[in-house]
């Protein structure tokens, strides 16, 4: 993966509306809730993979999606040896998480770069979007 590609578009894109660190924190909280929800928990684990997600170039904006077991979780920073790495701008993450833009399209257009079998995590993107919609009140409670 060429890291320079990851943020190439962010110069032209509008700034993220929400602080990226808070977005990652919220993402982890929502996934934690979903993992305990019988509608979503086991199905999210069908991704059967682990993903290092990095927003922009800052190592502080990294999280590891541990989706190879039930319950799934998102932990801050690099955990273990993730099978997949994906890199995107904070704005791109917001487009996915808040606006529901499908990351496959962003990958095709080069706005998200990846290494490894990214297909595995794309499999559960529809569920993550549903999870986000279900737990939208979490963001609202926090004033996000």
């Amino acid at each position, binding site marked *: 993966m060429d890291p320079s590609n990851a943020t190439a578009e962010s110069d032209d894109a509008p700034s993220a509306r929400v602080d990226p660190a808070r977005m990652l924190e919220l993402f982890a909280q929502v996934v934690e809730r979903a993992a305990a929800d019988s509608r979503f928990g086991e199905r999210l684990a069908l991704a059967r993979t682990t993903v290092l997600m990095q927003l922009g170039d800052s190592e502080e904006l990294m999280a590891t999606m541990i989706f190879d077991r039930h319950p799934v979780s998102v932990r801050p920073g690099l955990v273990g040896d993730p099978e997949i790495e994906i890199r995107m701008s904070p704005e791109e993450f917001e487009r996915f998480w808040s606006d529901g833009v499908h990351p496959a*399209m962003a990958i095709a257009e080069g706005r998200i770069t990846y290494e490894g079998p990214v297909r595995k995590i794309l*499999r559960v993107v529809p*569920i993550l979007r549903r999870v986000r919609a279900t737990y939208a009140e979490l963001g609202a409670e926090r004033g996000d």
Partner: protein
Amino acid sequence: MTQPPVSAAGATDEGTSALLDDAAGYALHDGAMQVPERNPGDFWSLECRDVVKSFGSNRVLNGIDLGIPEGMITVILGPSGTGKSVLIKHLIGLLFPDRGEVLVHGSSVAHMTMSELLAMRRRFGILFQDGALFGSINVYDNVAFPLRQHTDYSEATIRDIVRARLSEVGLAGSERKMPSELSGGMKKRAGFARALVLEPEIVMFDEPDSGLDPVRTALLCELIEEVHAEHGGTYIVITHDIATARKIGEYIAVLWKGRIVQSGDREKMFNSENPFVRQFLSGASRGPLGME
């Protein structure tokens, strides 16, 4: 792609030929997503690479290049007689190409052993046009059938799964009905429930709107979207119905005369400059698509 001349329907041989000749010069069709993969299947759920299939002198698939992205609802849209059904059979390994290859999660279907092929097919759930229910057994047993065939689940587990899936498609309470007692829409929903019981990674719908009125088609589309949001995975809908494509197609590929003319996300396709795609998606009578 150079634009071919647009002519009146029925007088389009020249325009049609120009479009196809023009397309033939391209390894990839107009608008095809090109995502580099270090290993096949890193990104694509399914991929057709220059797939050609003939029956006698009739070339049905004429060099299909198509990637189907993971985690989306892809609609393969095309007029009648363009090779949609033949394409489906290639995707699930019921037919094999004369040339080119079909990859499922990066593995070439033509090179699979029989056991690999059977394992690959288990990743698919398929909803056939009429639901393809067994007429001699009730709805419950129809939906339980794949579980009894392919798993060693206890009857109690099977009951829980079957009831959950039937509830999901709005058929709770219809377990004991025979297929002959169901309406066309109910048959499709029962077929959908059966397609889901093995938690497939890829669900394919062959003309799900056939035989349904617009309201029931819309309801079925909502159901497909709803279930996709709950289960994830790759959904492929093969249809000629533009309303269906507009409603549920996150990614759309237009098939014509055995070739993908253009593919892209919904917004791009419904704003296409390609004369054939524009005519087909707008339902216009004038354009390269005639009555032939």
